[in-house]
């Protein structure tokens, strides 16, 4: 499994060939409850680290998805727009949100690895 990093806002990013795939963590989907709506960024959009990149909504909550790394959006996952339930079923798998060409790979160093993220969750 490729190296996966996590943010304190509960996004994950996995990098391959200079392209990062971003999604929300299983913990995040659990906190939201049944996801009913997803809004994704436009392909080609330039995002700075921490920018508001997408929106994910449950019946009672609306949450912004912040990109954990900067870059240009290259692809979005239309499948989760068409069937938002996928975010609940496979948050850290097939229900990725968007891919972006990394602007600054050094930003990955600011994120947590799996063990650190799991430890962080225990503090919440």
């Amino acid at each position, binding site marked *: 499994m490729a190296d996966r990093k996590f943010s304190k806002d509960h996004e994950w990013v996995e990098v391959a060939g200079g392209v990062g795939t971003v999604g929300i963590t299983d913990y995040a989907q659990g906190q939201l409850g*049944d996801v*009913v*709506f997803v809004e994704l960024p436009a392909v080609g959009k330039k995002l700075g680290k921490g920018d508001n990149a997408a929106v994910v*909504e*449950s*019946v*009672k909550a609306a949450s912004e998805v912040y990109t954990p790394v900067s870059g240009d959006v290259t692809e979005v996952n239309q499948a989760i727009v068409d069937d*938002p*339930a996928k975010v609940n079923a496979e948050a850290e798998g097939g229900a990725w949100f968007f891919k972006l060409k990394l602007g600054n790979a050094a930003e990955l160093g600011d994120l947590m690895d799996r063990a650190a993220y799991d430890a962080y969750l225990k503090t919440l």
Partner: protein
Amino acid sequence: MSQNPHGTVTGNRGLQLEEPLIFEQGVAGRTGVDLPAAPQVKSRLGKAARKGTIGLPGLSEPQAIRHYTRLSQKNFAIDAGMYPLGSCTMKHNPRLNEKMVRLPGLADLHPMQPQSTVQGALALIDTLAHWLKTLTGMPAVAMSPAAGAQGELCGVMAIKAAHEAKGDHGRKVILVPESAHGTNPATAAACGYSVESIPANERGRVDLDALKAKLGPHVAGIMITNPNTCGLFENDIVEIGKAVHAAGGYFYCDGANFNAIVGRVRPGDLGIDCMHINLHKTFSTPHGGGGPGSGPVVLSAALAPYAPVPFVVHGPDGFKLVEEEAGEAAKAFGRLKGFHGQMGMFVRALTYMMSHGSDGMRQASEDAVLNANYIQARLGDIMTAPFPGPCMHEALFDDRFLNGSGVSTLDMAKALIDEGFHPMTMYFPLVVHGAFLIEPTESEHKATLDQFIAVMRSLVERIKKGDTQFLHDAPKLTPRRRLDETLAARKPVLRWRPAAPERQAAE
């Protein structure tokens, strides 16, 4: 006939009658209104005359009466039972209010009649304004806002106009406590302000030091609900007002909970600059299933010149309606709605206020506070209150007493429904985990409160014994059981559409 949980052929259950949509019972050509024949004339509609049908269903009068009667029987209502929705103030709606609003000479007035023909209506607005100013101790009131939320817009727009009139364009921030109703930040944003949150202290009040640290020349004002959304009086309120004024800001008070203090405290004595009053909460105009409201805003002398048009003044020939942003309204910040305000709500509110009188309104506030404290005292040993009492008009509990039971605040609410009570407000304010916000209002008698308390106690007893499945299954006795809100949001069906025509067999 599809299967139904009651095992009846019709799906009906005694007095609870199933009712299809009007679109499922309409027949073309049938109507519930007879009209005289239209005289023959040459059309002057020009090129835009409608072609084709609209698709409205046709029902006769008896069908329509039965339709809405059956629908009404699927609703809970104040008329039927205790409705302790915290922050919503579901008090008795006197029927005299309804009779008065329908009087000829009030109900049939057109808003654009010559002012000489509506002197009684203008006098009524002026009288209500006098009562509101006297009860709040404020010098002015803007009567036109259509609801509390529009009243908030009115207050914040007046604040903005006042800063701009002083040439002060640098104030971009409105401070709002964490516990505030969502409308407050939404209002500030709708006026172009950004919102900064003020933390609460351990007593559920605004943290005065944290507030002072946030004040400065960038702050346009503060919006504070008092009594606050935790049902507590902000006992530092006078200091808060002084601090905000010292920093050059204005003090917006959200008057959603004014009903707790009418006749006991005048907000004007607390140093506020403006406050909206929800006539449907404090002054008994009907909630009507979600409106219409009415949200007059009392204003300090500093903000009064910026009040929106229209307003009523005393002129040489009687009352005068100022409708134009000129003359005495030269500084008005604009107009919020068509015509003059929610007159129908003014009539009802004034009827209520005159009925109670100054002594009765004070007694009503006292009884509302008494009832809430009675609930807090009688449930405090088995439920968990986040803040010590006394409370004002609503009792707040959190869900710590449910820890480990697998039962949620929502489950408790649904079980109350089967017991014949409308649930309290849940999960608000957001600063308290799993909040139960219980507002009994002055309209409930002790016997009803005792029954409510007995139900809550019995639910908690059963939870303690591990008897919880019934809570997850509740409600069982309602016209519909728990509804699938996820399905509704994922695949929105927001209107009826005719069934797709049966596919014609291929020729």
